[in-house]
């Protein structure tokens, strides 16, 4: 089946849906947005070529396959995931969404993001660009085959850690 090029509206709606699941801590449902061969990566902050770098030969901040992102979601819902207990307040702002060409049924999307995390009385920001590879779902909508977050940070000196989902 050849899928027509989706509209930016459709893609934006999907990205907002993903963001809402994360912000509302519906993490197991968030994990279900991903294909079985999916990747969720956050590239190193001191990387010269974050778009093409690989977690197979570089130390990423986070490099999840489907198994680990599912485990990450499951873990973060436990009281014993101490770093996120009680859960931080999380807010995604997504913008500058642009669609690449639709090739082999895969849709490349680039979006800018700012994510705010408030833990106790401290708020920190994570900003950067997200590179997505989406695939259409038979049931309609999309699934995420790859999400690569490239943060505009040189370190996590201000944020301390990255324990929420971007």
């Amino acid at each position, binding site marked *: 089946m050849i899928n027509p090029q989706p509209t930016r509206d459709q893609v934006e709606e999907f990205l907002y849906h993903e963001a809402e699941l994360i912000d509302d801590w519906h993490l197991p449902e968030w994990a279900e947005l991903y294909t079985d061969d999916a990747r969720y990566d956050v590239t190193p902050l001191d990387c010269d070529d974050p778009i093409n770098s690989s*977690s197979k030969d570089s*130390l990423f*901040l986070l490099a999840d396959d489907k198994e*680990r992102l599912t485990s990450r979601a499951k873990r973060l819902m436990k009281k014993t995931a101490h*770093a996120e207990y009680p859960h931080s307040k999380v807010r995604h702002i997504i913008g500058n969404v642009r669609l690449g060409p639709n090739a082999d049924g895969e849709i490349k999307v680039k979006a800018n993001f700012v994510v705010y995390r408030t833990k106790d009385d401290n708020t920190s920001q994570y900003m950067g660009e997200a590179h997505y590879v989406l695939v259409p779902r038979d049931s309609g909508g999309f699934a995420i085959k790859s999400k690569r977050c490239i943060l505009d940070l040189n370190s996590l000196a201000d944020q*301390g*850690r990255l324990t929420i989902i971007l």
Partner: protein
Amino acid sequence: MSSVLTSPRKLVDIDSVHHRFRINREAYRSAEIFEKEKQLIFSKCWLYVGHTSEIPKKGDFVARTVGGGDLIFMRGRSGEVGAFFNSCTHRGTRVCREKRGTAKSFACPYHGWVYNTEGKLVSMNATNFVADINADGALDLRKVSRLEQYRGFYFVNYNPAAISLVDFLAGATEFLDSMCDQTEAELVVLPGEHSYSINANFKYLCENSYDGYHLLPVHVSYLEFLDDRLKAAGDQGAVNFIANLFTKQGRGRGLGNGHGALESWVPTGRPVASWIPPWGPEVKKEIEAKRTWLAQRFGKERADFISDVQKNLVIFPNLVINDNVGIIIRTIEPTSASSMRINSWALGPTDESAALRAIRLDNFVSFLGPSGFGSADDIEMLELCQRGIEHAPVEWNELSKGMNGAEDSRVEVCGPDDEGHMRAYWTQWDRMMRGAETLEAR
């Protein structure tokens, strides 16, 4: 908030009769003590600056903060490795503004003074200075007093009179050796660094880095993740393994001069050389071949020690080298009495396959770093500790677990979930803070 302290009576209270070892909480929160630590510990100890593989070619450099010093660690065009203060001798300008790179020289952006890669001042961008103004070399980029290396790990010391690096490392060399002996090729720092911060006193992270006691309470959610993976691959799980066996094998050890290590068994798999089923058959042969090679080269006992034992090493006062899920170097740079910056890197041997390299890095990020399933929870614990000690009217932290009457707690041996290796750290800390130990050559 840091409390004001005037002449504390005692910071480390050792009661060897009743087997109590206690740390005055001022040691974790006092700005005055932090200032004393800079003078009496960070200006006297050997501090890790970088690994030889980070500056492989002539002219390569990295800029790095070490014990408060903003340093350029550099392989000069002559081939000699140096460590310099990143500050122009003219007006103080920071001359190197990149984190790493390859340089022919460093030109100060302010008035154009130029230093070569040996730190020599080669141009003052002017003609009307007296000709012999730098005859004594005082206007060269200032070198750190001492720079020495052990098996590719470079350390600086701000004290010209310090004992040698190898004497300082004492028993810690055994662990550096067992790590470096994993390969006949080279051990290299892999691309990508974790750089983050924790709002807690730096010594809390030192304690945490080889604390076997916290494993189950803090890391049960990581162990459950590992449990799921192992069981899915048909293996026994991790949680029962830890609950039943962790305290029955391994040990904590003081290694002299405040260094210490935890030797333990945790079924995370080790790239050299302990395979676990979730890694799949592709790398199994390679890992088994490595183990056979180790046994042929060093004998079975040492090969088993290298391959099976998880080794968490703390080199006094602020370096962690973990040879466990992979190899991690972690430097802990205190920024105040109640905050620290952490930088960490993964190491791997150049002779491993791409598949095993990928597993090594995957194993690292699954547990370690600011997004790992383990370290992130450790960080939370340390920040909770700091918050607690800043206000509670409790004078002492307890480090008495497994105290066994060792004559010299700096070389105490204890159970893997005991605190003897931490007592080794604190005994050295106390001696240095009282001026009883200066680590100077006699």
